[in-house]
């Protein structure tokens, strides 16, 4: 049942974050030419955005984090601490490692 969704493991997390770093470097050089998916940890505070893709974690769906749901970031804890989000008036704290894997609809460039 769960296999359909993206499975969250420490390993693919590492790979993903390396990819992203590469991507970011490329991004700086080439300016606006490349675009990529905006993720939850990059979303500005108090700005609404729809969820496009989530990692597999049993507690996300019950807390309202599902595909197509409108989400906003209420606060970001310093030193890599959790991101506080709100969906349907319900608040939850999410680890940055998970927030990085939650992709949002819309493009990171379009957001700016």
């Amino acid at each position, binding site marked *: *049942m769960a296999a359909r969704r993206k499975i969250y493991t420490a390993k693919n997390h590492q790979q993903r974050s390396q990819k992203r770093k590469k991507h970011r470097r490329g991004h700086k050089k080439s300016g606006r030419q490349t675009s990529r998916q905006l993720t939850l940890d990059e979303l500005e505070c108090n700005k609404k955005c729809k969820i496009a893709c989530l990692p597999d974690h*049993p*507690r996300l769906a*019950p807390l309202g984090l*599902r595909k197509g749901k409108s989400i906003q970031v209420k606060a970001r*804890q310093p030193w890599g601490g*959790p991101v506080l989000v709100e969906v349907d*008036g319900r608040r939850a*704290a*999410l680890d940055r490692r998970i927030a990085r894997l939650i992709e949002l609809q819309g493009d990171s460039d379009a957001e700016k």
Partner: protein
Amino acid sequence: MPKSKSEKILLIGPPNVGKSVFFGQLTGLEVRVSNYAGTTVDYREGQLTLSGRDFTLIDVPGTYTLDASNEAEEIAVEMLNQEPGAVICVLDALNLESSLYLLLQILESGVPVIPVINRMDLLDQKNYQLDVKLLSRELKLPVLPAVAVEGQGLGELTQNLEKILLSENKSGSETYRPDDNLQIDNEEQRWRQAENLYHKVINKEGEQKVSTREKWGNLLIQPWPGFPLAAVIMSIFFGLVVGAGMGIRNFLLLPFFERLIFPPIIYIIEAAVSPGVIRNILIGEYGFLIKGLEWPLALVFPYIISFYSGLSLLEDSGYLPRLGVLLDSIFARIGLGGSGIIPLLLGYGCAIPGITATRALDSYRERLIVSTVICLSVPCIAQTGAFISLLAEQSILVVLALFIFSLLFLGLSAGLMSRFLEGSRPETVVEIPELLWPRIRVVGKKIWLRIKNFLVGGELHMIYAIALAAVLYETGVLLYLGRLIQPVVTGWLRLPAEAANPLILGIVRRELTVLPLLEMNLTSLQLFVAALVGLFYVPCIAVFAVLNSEFNLKVTGLVLFITVFTSFLLGGIVSRLGGLFL
């Protein structure tokens, strides 16, 4: 149908929705409730009598879904499979959508279900309207609105339970069973169904109000001003615990016992019992008619009152999960998640609820770390009370120094353990509950419950332990046992030989590592060293029993070794270093 199967009633619902409040009111049992997910970590059974017939009501730990992705959910699924007579599914008015998902899952299992929507009052405060009748029609079974803490909706609930469980004809209970078109076979469909249902019955058109309560709930979790406010709140908490505790002790309980209770006891015993071993056991050095009352009731009890009053308020407000989020990145440095703060804080009351509360944590690894750290460097409130009695006479700063040591070691030991234990830090995914003003009746009941637990449990054990100590001391057995560890006590820790006694007694109760030191005329350095050894020394026998049942013998043995080793190592080092400076 076998009788035993149909007489079970399950209470199922998402975490922190108030299942235990229903449980308490339906069974009349006293249960601990609070405002964060994971208060109930194990299922509980109670008797419920309907029209003269006894049923067993089972309070199942909160579960968001029945996907069996953690221990609590596995318990819920297992119990549903045992064909209970009925299930009371408690839904959360504020988070109805995901509650409906759980309800749909339960309905699919085919057991008779009574859905109850709790916390309706919070919905009113938000100015949302919920069409309960429409929901009943959609689901084809009666849905009951309720405000459990106020007792609203309980009457209808018992009526409906009677209808299901006491009706003789099968068709009577059949109407409560879900109809066939509710058969859904995948998660996404079920979520869509829950979403559709939710949008049909909710009306959010009313004017949106943001209460001051909500504003504060938000402010407290922002890094600014959340961090300074956390420092203020925790300082007030500890200040009140120590201040109120000392006040109750010095002005109320100590004078009461010293002036009114002890003189007649001593007078009577001295008249009735001739000097000797028996008289000494009763009113001598460890005389249990004196110390057995003074230590638990005059020295420790005041702090039980003040600590649990403060903790119960914090628990009911919903502040603790917020504190956990603020501390998350700091706890990350020592390999823990922020939610570890709740078992740790409970551990400052007593290690046993602290260790059982670790069940709400995500991984075995984190449970092991937090439990070990509680045993090693978190003093229970009884021991803290003893520390204050012992050290505050010198200076309150000494008490503070001791607590700084305790915190430093807490961090150090957790950090070391997380480095050596396999696995990585679990990801924090935690719900932040609404901030609620604590209800005086609920908090008052909880404080009373905890005080009662101390009086009939902790305090009695302590009196037995002191009686045993009195017998061992007066018969010379304690002296003999003390001689075995004397070289370590006098040579390494540089304490007087009699300081071996509390270390032997401390195995029975944690505060007994400290209280006997009161009358030993120790120097300041010796006092501090002895207190430090007492702090890191073995937790009491009851804690070992819990460790053994929650983990295994190996873990228990390891904790025993680590605590004894650390306490003696640290005590010796501090006594030597202190000797250089003082």
